């Protein structure tokens, strides 16, 4: 029983990592008023590229690098549509997302059902030998630590720095931001690229570290969960990190419950994360002021500066 709990608590960090990375990226994008719904496609494309490159070269750093490059390249297509041509954000995001899924199938075609060794987790001396805490917290992959560090840094950036405030206000009212002299389009572009970088890291992590193998459809809705997590966390990074962890634990709960021998129908366990999302979203939206103060007002609206 104890082993099962530790397995879930420790494993949740690993399953939460791709969700957290993608969600933090998307949160920053949405904070500037842009809704990028291509997260799933960016993650899938990055996952395929990361696996293919790492499998061929044995160099996981190169794999991650090219995966991020692939994800950013996709986001630039989105940026051109939305920022340069003022295309509808929802439609553009969906279209680029579908493109990403298609590219991931194309790249992954020759690697279908191949697997490889995952790199070893970090286990810092002393810390990792602590009872319980060591097992749960200090035997994780480097990317997992990075993900939670990014969540914390993003919180600090948005709440404590001038540039963070500028990022936020661009999403509240781009016209006023423009009148005050901020380059709205450039700020939105940076945010989109940051979001794509995070999605790319998340996708690469999923195919090379979390489940080091490739099969089509490997991302399996993680991108959409990330988009939901942003709302779940009311656009606040620390809440998003909590939500991602909770979600990761629920995803593992499936396996854990089977291991304990309880007979719960698997459909119920598999649907639990999604049911929880709906319940929590409903609960969170009860605090209207909180949402009003954190939700980007101009989300989904394009802005064209007058010249």
């Amino acid at each position, binding site marked *: 029983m104890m082993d099962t709990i530790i397995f879930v608590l420790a494993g949740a960090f690993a399953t939460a990592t791709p969700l957290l990375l993608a969600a933090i990226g998307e949160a920053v994008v949405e904070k500037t008023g842009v809704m990028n719904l291509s997260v799933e496609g960016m993650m899938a494309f990055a996952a395929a590229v990361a696996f293919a490159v790492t499998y061929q070269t044995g160099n996981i750093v190169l794999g991650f690098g090219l995966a991020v490059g692939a994800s950013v390249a996709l986001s630039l297509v989105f940026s051109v549509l939305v920022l340069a041509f003022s295309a509808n954000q929802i439609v553009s995001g969906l279209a680029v997302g579908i493109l990403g899924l298609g590219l991931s199938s194309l790249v992954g075609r020759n690697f279908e059902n191949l697997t490889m060794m995952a790199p070893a987790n970090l286990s810092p001396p002393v810390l990792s030998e602590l009872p319980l805490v060591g097992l749960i917290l200090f035997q994780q992959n480097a990317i997992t630590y990075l993900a939670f560090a990014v969540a914390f840094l993003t919180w600090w950036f948005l709440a404590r720095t001038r540039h963070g405030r500028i990022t936020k206000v661009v999403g509240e009212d781009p016209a006023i931001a423009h009148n005050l002299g901020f380059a709205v389009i450039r700020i939105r572009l940076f945010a989109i690229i940051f979001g794509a970088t995070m999605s790319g890291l998340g996708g690469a992590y999923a195919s090379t570290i979390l489940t080091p193998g490739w099969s089509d459809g490997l991302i399996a809705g993680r991108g959409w969960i990330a988009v939901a997590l942003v709302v779940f966390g009311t656009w606040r990074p620390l809440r998003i990190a909590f939500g991602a962890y909770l979600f990761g634990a629920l995803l593992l709960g499936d396996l854990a419950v089977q291991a304990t021998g309880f007979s719960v129908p698997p459909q119920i366990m598999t649907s639990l994360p999604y049911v929880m999302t709906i319940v929590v979203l409903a609960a969170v939206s009860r605090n209207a*002021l909180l949402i009003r103060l954190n939700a980007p007002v101009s989300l989904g609206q394009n802005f064209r500066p007058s010249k």
Partner: protein
Amino acid sequence: MKTKVGESPPLLQLRNITKRYGTYVANDSVYLSLEQGQICAILGENGAGKSTLMKTIYGIQQPDEGEIVWNGEKVAVTSPSVARDLGIGMVFQHFSLFETISVVENISLTVPGSLPDLSEIISQKANEYGLHVNPDAPVHGLSVGERQRVEIIRCLMQDPKLLILDEPTSVLPPHSVQQLFGTLRKLSERGVAMLYISHKLEEIRDLCHCAVVLRQGRVTGTANPRQATSAELARLMIGQAIPTARHAEAKPSCEPALTVSDLSYDNPDPLGESLDSVSMVVRPGEIVGIAGVSGNGQSTLARLLSGEIRLQSDMASRIRVFDRSVGDTQPGMRRELGVTFVPEERLGRATVPAMSLADNVLLTAHRAGLVRKGLIRRRQQADFADSCISGMDVRSRGRQSIASSLSGGNLQKFVLGREILLEPRILIVSQPTWGIDVGAAAMVRQKLVDLRDTGTAILMISEELEEIFEISDRIHVMYHGRLSPSVQARSVTAEDVGRMMMGEFDQTMRAA
């Protein structure tokens, strides 16, 4: 141009500034010169190019031709941050504060420094100029007057040499206007020059040292506002004196047309406006004006009256049209009873931006015989649209013009004309002359008075105190979601109403 030896050059000179949007010339070879400490009024009708010129000086947009000379040196103001570095500050008409962050956070966006340091400087400037604000207050909780103080403090913190003010008093109660003028005079004595856009000629005569008149993008004259009369300034601006509405004593009948009793509403949007037991009566043949600074519940009231927000059916009798309870009915049902509405947002609420004027007529006038058996009667539709356009002097390219192609003022005239032509028994109109220039505004007011004299009950919600006084028979004031008891327009002074606009009507009521 060389300056004479020993004489310092003017602070700001504009030479030949020209700005085009496509074929439309917004500014046509504008010259202007401003000395230190000088307050110069920029006068002109809507669309005369005032705002365009100010945006050019502040670097929001670039001129197509001409140059800006600052302290004798030619400069390229390529962005607002360049303007701020030069020492140019701007107080925007519709404010440029973000609601979800605090006062000091807003100021930190454009003024360098840590938050605690900035808070201290804010308090210091606030004391120096009598502009009291709490640096840590979230902006969404501030009144318009307080927001404007924040805007001005933000400009002052950059130690400006030139301040641009775009209709700064249009949203202020009279008491705050005097306070603002005190601050501006103090700044002027310290050498800060100002460009002051306003429609209010009396204010300009009170405050400004010089006045420049723009018409159709060109400078057409200058005046000394201290010596010129308001009528002379108006003639420079629109080519004629401003007519005032002929306004005979109202003869209201006793049967109320519109009755609102104890109407309360909790707005689900936490930053929205709620209402607290509002009661009033409008009778046929009178104009009831609701004064007050916007944001005190007027837009919520207007939406409740129009049916855009519907009450629960047990509350339906809180709003009555003649003897019918309508609080829970749809807008169409209320219109069937002879109520028409002119909302303050012309695009999106009063008209469909992408549709032609002829089709926009159909939206509300389909009841007036323009539709038979579900089919549009094209002839009648065209006639209705044409009489609306000619009757209200709507400047457009005919009834096929797209609504969004009209200027705000012309669209407002069109919407008002459409609703007046329906011969309503009750007309509810919000901000009837917002954004309309003085000449057209006078015409609109006259139309409202004429409609009243035909026996229509009119409820007018307006921020313009002068307008309220000019044509209302009775006046209510809205403050923080509450409505004052009504006062007779002829027996009350602007100062009384100004006090009521600051919420001092409970005392007035008890004293009475």
